């Protein structure tokens, strides 16, 4: 194998966690295959990123661009396409992020490479790459291989691949590529930060999180009572925000907030990864769910299989009046 390329995504002057996860993975695979690891970053501030990336990568290609300060698909696609055409890496790694969901498929078509997204495992046996994807609501794992080809593009599921601090000292090469930040057919108009909400769930010690399983806005009261009994606050998974039951400030997960409470009590949440990545830092996870096969039970410390609406009121009662 000749080379592995990792695309480094950044936001607010920091490389994305998932990019570091991919760098570590890339490093591991490169060492295993005895090939080089190349990192590519498109940024207006090369010095801020390149050296950091060089700890994992043997070499870093820093593509200089003007604004904006965070990753946009268009400039990356142009830069990466030409790099890939020129250097023909065997493997291109990106994190399965919003950025990559916009970029990777177009890039794959652009350079005519096969693409597997949201991989939960990436393995290499005598040069051949196989990946695992989690499908059907996490109930099934699918294993994929690739027809012989020059380059395979993969995106890795955030929070699944371990990060080992890089120890290397790669060389940084700043290159100048024709980067179109402003394609006339697609203008970047800026970005908006998440709306502030009255409660800051990221600072809460105890979170009572509700999902689809609470069935109806009216039932949020039950969860709220429990939260009050536990001295915690209400959090939720995406559907609850989609239904307009709670403001987005309460949402935990990929498109919501990342939390680290002492106790995360998940009510009627199935545990899709987009949600789970948001609560990895929790000390203790307890799940109550009807479906004994719900993925959340895989990550939870304790679980009760049953009807949330039935159990929660009773639980609240027991929290309030400890039996002596």
């Amino acid at each position, binding site marked *: 194998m000749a080379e592995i390329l990792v695309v480094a995504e950044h936001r607010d002057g920091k490389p994305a966690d998932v990019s570091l996860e991919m760098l570590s993975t890339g490093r591991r695979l490169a060492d295993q295959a005895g090939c080089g690891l190349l990192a590519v970053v498109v940024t207006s501030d090369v010095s801020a990123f390149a050296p950091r990336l060089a700890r994992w990568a043997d070499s870093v290609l820093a593509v200089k661009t003007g604004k904006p300060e965070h990753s946009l698909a268009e400039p990356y696609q142009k830069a990466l396409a030409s790099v890939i055409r020129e250097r023909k890496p065997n493997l291109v790694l990106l994190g399965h992020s919003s950025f990559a969901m916009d970029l990777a498929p177009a890039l794959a078509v652009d350079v005519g490479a096969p693409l597997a997204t949201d991989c939960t495992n990436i393995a290499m046996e005598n040069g051949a790459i196989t990946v695992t994807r989690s499908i059907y609501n996490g109930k099934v*794992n699918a294993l994929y291989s690739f027809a012989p080809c020059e380059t395979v593009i993969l995106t890795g599921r955030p929070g699944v691949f371990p990060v080992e601090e890089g120890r290397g000292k790669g060389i940084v090469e700043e290159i100048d590529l024709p980067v179109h930040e402003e394609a006339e057919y697609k203008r970047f108009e800026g970005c908006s930060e998440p709306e502030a909400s009255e409660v800051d769930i990221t600072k809460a010690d105890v979170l009572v999180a509700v999902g689809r399983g609470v069935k109806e806005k009216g039932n949020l009261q039950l969860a709220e009572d429990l939260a009050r009994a536990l001295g915690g606050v209400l959090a939720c998974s995406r559907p609850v925000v*989609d239904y307009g039951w709670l403001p987005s400030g309460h949402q935990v997960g990929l498109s919501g907030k990342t939390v680290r409470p002492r106790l995360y009590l998940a009510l009627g949440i199935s545990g899709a990864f987009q949600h789970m990545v948001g609560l990895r830092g929790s000390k203790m996870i307890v799940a109550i769910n009807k479906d004994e096969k719900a993925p959340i039970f895989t990550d939870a410390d304790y679980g009760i299989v049953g009807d949330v609406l039935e159990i929660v009121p009773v639980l609240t009662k027991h929290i309030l009046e400890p039996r002596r």
Partner: protein
Amino acid sequence: MDIVVAVKQVPDTSEVVDVVEIDGSGKDIERGTLVSRINEWDEYALEEALQWKQKLGGTVTAVTVGPGEWDDTLRRALAMGADRAIRVDEDATVIDCSAAARTLAALIGRLPHDLVMFGAQSEDFGSAQLGPMVAEMLGIPHAALVVRLQVEEGEAHVERELEGGARDLYTLRLPALLTIQTGINRPRYVSFSSVRKAREKELSVMSLDELGLPPQALTPAVELARLELAPAGKGAVLISGAAEEAAARLATILREAGVI
């Protein structure tokens, strides 16, 4: 405003439906007991398309690549208010994203399209690839994970969802392709009678050949080796017993663990 919406039909494997088994081939799940539904993200895409048709006039065409059973989903799309539906008759369960993208690009390329909408991802495979691939093949701008849309004077102003609730704002020149994230709207209920009425609406079926695609256009670049049931529930210590009893024990556990 002519809008094309790509939809797909998925087996209902949502939280409370948990009877998923691998079939003999090891490459598919037992579909016998599973019921099908329209992919949730596609439902939002359709609703969004229909609301813009309502505002700006024009047509909404629902398209898919799939087997005959998927007509159910197209009929549902028609019932929701789509003007016509086209199915490319291929077994989508065995082809990969790039093949599906190629097929849809060929189809959509032949249709009037100021706007093309896809669900941001599918419930079953969750690849989130199809939309941007098709956009690249059609050579039109795209934006993935759109949570807000404003269409005016040949332009689409969109908000893309990023991690942590942040959003990127773009202006795309039409024609453009958007992949729609859930929550962008409230999909309407599709009544039984409206599905019945939709039977009169046009639902056409096309073959690869009619699209001028050779069979090898479907050769997958990504090959499915096999499926395995995910190890379920192994992590958690499950507290058994009736609600009363289980809740009591959990309360004790929480107390002893000092989390409360």
